[in-house]
């Protein structure tokens, strides 16, 4: 009950935050975003056509009126249709967000699980060969350009210049329309192609994010290792993996979970532009990028709003997780 009350209270407090974020992004979009009029009119626009289109796009309306229209869209969660394609924004999000989540989730899970594991090993062997080896690996992962990693992994795993194990690009399509297709065949088809398309992007993504995660998690765990209870345990000769996992990791979970949860909104809504571009994945990252460069405000507004809302939810969720990890934490202070 206390948690629910706290969540509701936080939710109410966060309303001004959401409005603040949307206000700033709206100002940026209106005053610094591209003017779509000229790219929409094609080669030989006349003055009259320019005026007509600007009127249709609402560019002539006062800022405050446009902002109130945006707020109305935000409250009703109806962002209208894309200026470019005419498709409903909710339909665009519905089509592309699940793809981005499906791509990002395996790497999100793996990079955090591996990150924590490697950090524990490194911290446990602090200053020794294992620690140094893992840290070298982490620094390499952090230092190599993401773009280079993506290209290299694509060449190594997906092309005839390398192992040629996975498709170069694409995404899971509905299965062929065979009249005698079985349910198992359909399930297996989706299972097979999902992993086929997601494998290389996941490997590239894990390779890069693992470095950052491992370094961060190791620092947190090492700090925990300096505490009195660990020193006492060591003095009694019970310093072991059991203590690392059951006590050290548990006590280090607050900063670790914060980092993990805070990145969740970006996994859900932001997509990954580089992966989507290079692996031909129809995710929301590329849609958002195109919307920003093309000045497709309805899509940009929807993505910004969803990200802000999810971010606030993630913050609330983080506080709830704190309490679950450490019941001594009180919501009243």
């Amino acid at each position: 009950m206390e948690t629910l009350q706290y969540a509701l209270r936080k939710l109410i407090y966060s309303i001004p935050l959401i409005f603040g974020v949307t206000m700033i992004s709206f100002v940026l979009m209106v005053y610094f975003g591209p003017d779509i009029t000229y790219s929409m009119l094609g080669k030989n626009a006349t003055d009259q056509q320019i005026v007509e289109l600007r009127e249709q796009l609402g560019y002539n309306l006062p800022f405050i009126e446009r902002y109130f229209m945006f707020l109305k869209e935000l409250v009703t969660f109806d962002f209208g249709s894309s200026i470019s394609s005419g498709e409903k924004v909710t339909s665009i999000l519905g089509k592309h967000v699940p793809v981005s989540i499906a791509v990002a989730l395996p790497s999100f899970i793996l990079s955090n699980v591996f990150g924590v594991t490697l950090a524990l090993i490194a911290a446990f062997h602090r200053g020794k060969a294992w620690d140094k080896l893992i840290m070298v690996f982490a620094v390499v992962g952090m230092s190599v350009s993401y773009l280079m990693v993506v290209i290299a992994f694509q060449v190594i795993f997906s092309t005839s210049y390398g192992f040629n194990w996975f498709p170069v690009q694409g995404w899971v399509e509905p299965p062929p329309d065979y009249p005698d297709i079985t349910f198992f065949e359909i399930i297996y088809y989706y299972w097979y192609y999902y992993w086929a398309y997601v494998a290389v992007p996941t490997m590239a993504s894990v390779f890069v994010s693992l470095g950052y995660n491992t370094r961060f998690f190791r620092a947190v765990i090492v700090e925990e290792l300096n505490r009195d209870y660990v020193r006492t345990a060591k003095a009694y000769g019970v310093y072991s993996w059991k203590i690392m996992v059951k006590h050290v990791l548990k006590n280090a979970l607050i900063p670790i979970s914060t980092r993990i949860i805070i990145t969740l909104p970006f996994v859900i809504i932001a997509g990954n532009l580089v992966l989507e571009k290079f692996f031909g994945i129809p995710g929301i990252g590329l849609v958002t990028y195109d919307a920003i460069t093309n000045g497709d405000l309805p899509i940009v507004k929807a993505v910004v709003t969803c990200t802000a809302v999810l971010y606030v939810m993630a913050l609330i969720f983080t506080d709830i997780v704190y309490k679950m990890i450490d019941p001594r934490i009180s919501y009243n202070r």
Partner: protein
Amino acid sequence: MIVKKRHTLLWAFIVLLAIVGCQKPFSNRAKDISVFRFSENGAPISMDPVQGSSQYANLMNTSIFDTLYEYKYLKKPYELKPLLASAMPEVSEDGILYTIPIEKGVHFTDDPCFPDGVGRELTAEDFVYSIKRMFDPKNQPQGAWLWQGRIKGLDEWKEAGSDYEQPVEGLRAKDRYTIEVELTQPYPQLVYTFAMGYSGVVPREAVEYYGKEFGIKPVGSGPYQLVKFSTKKAVLKRNPKFREQIFDLEYEGYVPEEHDWANVKLLQGKTMPIMENVEVYFMRESMTRWNSLNKGNEIQLGTIPIELTHMVAESLKPLVLKPEYAKKFNGMNLPDFGLVYFLFNMDDPKIGYHPDPEQNHRNFLLRKAIRAGYDWNQRNRRFYNNVGDIFPGIIPRGLDAFDETLPMDSVTADYEQAKAYLKEGGWTAENLPVLDYHSGTGVIYVQFFEQFRGWMEKIGYPREKIKLNLHATFGDFSKAMKNKECMVWGMGWGLDYPDSENVLQLFYGPNKSPGSNASNYDNPEFNELFRKAKVMQPGPERTELYKKMNKMIIEDVPVLTGLTRNSPYIWHKNVVFHHSRNPHASLLKYAYVFDESELEKLEQESAGEE
């Protein structure tokens, strides 16, 4: 014990998946070759013909919708043939009235927008409706300029509120299968405009049923219908109602010496569209596109990335692939139907027209000096693999008024000559104006600028007086151009139809910004010649006028031109395709992916003939 059992089950499941996971789904079924996988380096935003300004949209539109005319598949120079029309138009003697009969029995594809979901017959009224849409501001049309001020009553119809129930004087259905177009003055390019994706015929029911989403849920009567569309891919399947069209080699402009290498002979007698399914992949990353193409079982057509040309090809012009790639691919070096050029804003008194005749002349000499410093050959070597076509003037190869006899001095760098022009104009490092170079954002554009700045330094232009002004998006860049804010900048132009008028109109005074004349060149003599030529039917007299106008542009230097880019396209050996460029876009219906046995048979036949 239970934990152990769980572990065993989990491992069994993982092993099972690993074993089964190695086998491709449906690998025991017959191989499906009824798909052609095409690729493009950009994506269309909408497939509504009124918004089809990009080449990507044009490709899709001409596959989904019918246009009255289209270009013959192999014929060069381009030649039109009837598509939805049943014959070429009947034109009145004064060139004002066009009567166009259309095919009977053409149906739109079945769609929920029609009563009972059954596509109805396409009639002349549908064409009238489709052109009217281009003059309805609600549709945010991009191609109205093609018919603006040309068709009687169309502009007035728009002024009166674009009411579809109201007739347009010069655009009418004479009967169910005959269209009449009445012009305000002769417009010899009109028939070309009816081959463009903009003039695709749409059913009113679908536009009203889908509203704004018509652009992603198009309904037409063309060879294909759209099944799926995303930013990465479009899936087309054969329109089962498409009328019978049989491929005829001779009629399509087949010349054995030019086309045999592409196996186009295999198309003879085939019913179009040949492939049951076409997938168009929109791939902006050139390396991904190449990797996918080279893999063998993904896309079947693409380009060689500029970074890999020397690895893949022995020569680019003509395209000769290295043996290991020649085994896998056919290909051609395809020239753009257009050009790239560099403009001066003639309305900017610092570089263009000046009210003071003396300063005006000095500006003219300054432009000439910049032209003499502009090294097209180096641009070609550095950025276009040295396979671009450099030519003087604004009319590129492939058009009737292309002039082989023009001297090349206007496209050949001569730094000493450039310095001499500056000296003649009294220009010194101190009094030269700041060159405000506008550009889109991107590494290549910055490299273009740096190369340009290097040339200008060679002719004595102070480095600090050459400023780069980047625009974040093409929309912003376009806005600056239309508002006459750019001083000098590079541009590209793809021809809308194979008539020199399409490039010469870029310098016609009344088309000044925000129109297509971005240089704001305004020469009364040129304008007069243009007005005269634009109503003339094709012929030697008109060609001479075009050539004269071309020379005037070279003489007055509102633009530095030009270069036609070439792209090395390659496709898998078991694909029959002969690539072409805008305005010829309706290419997908000719693509054919064949069984290897068919190729062997063909090779045996050719060996037998030899």
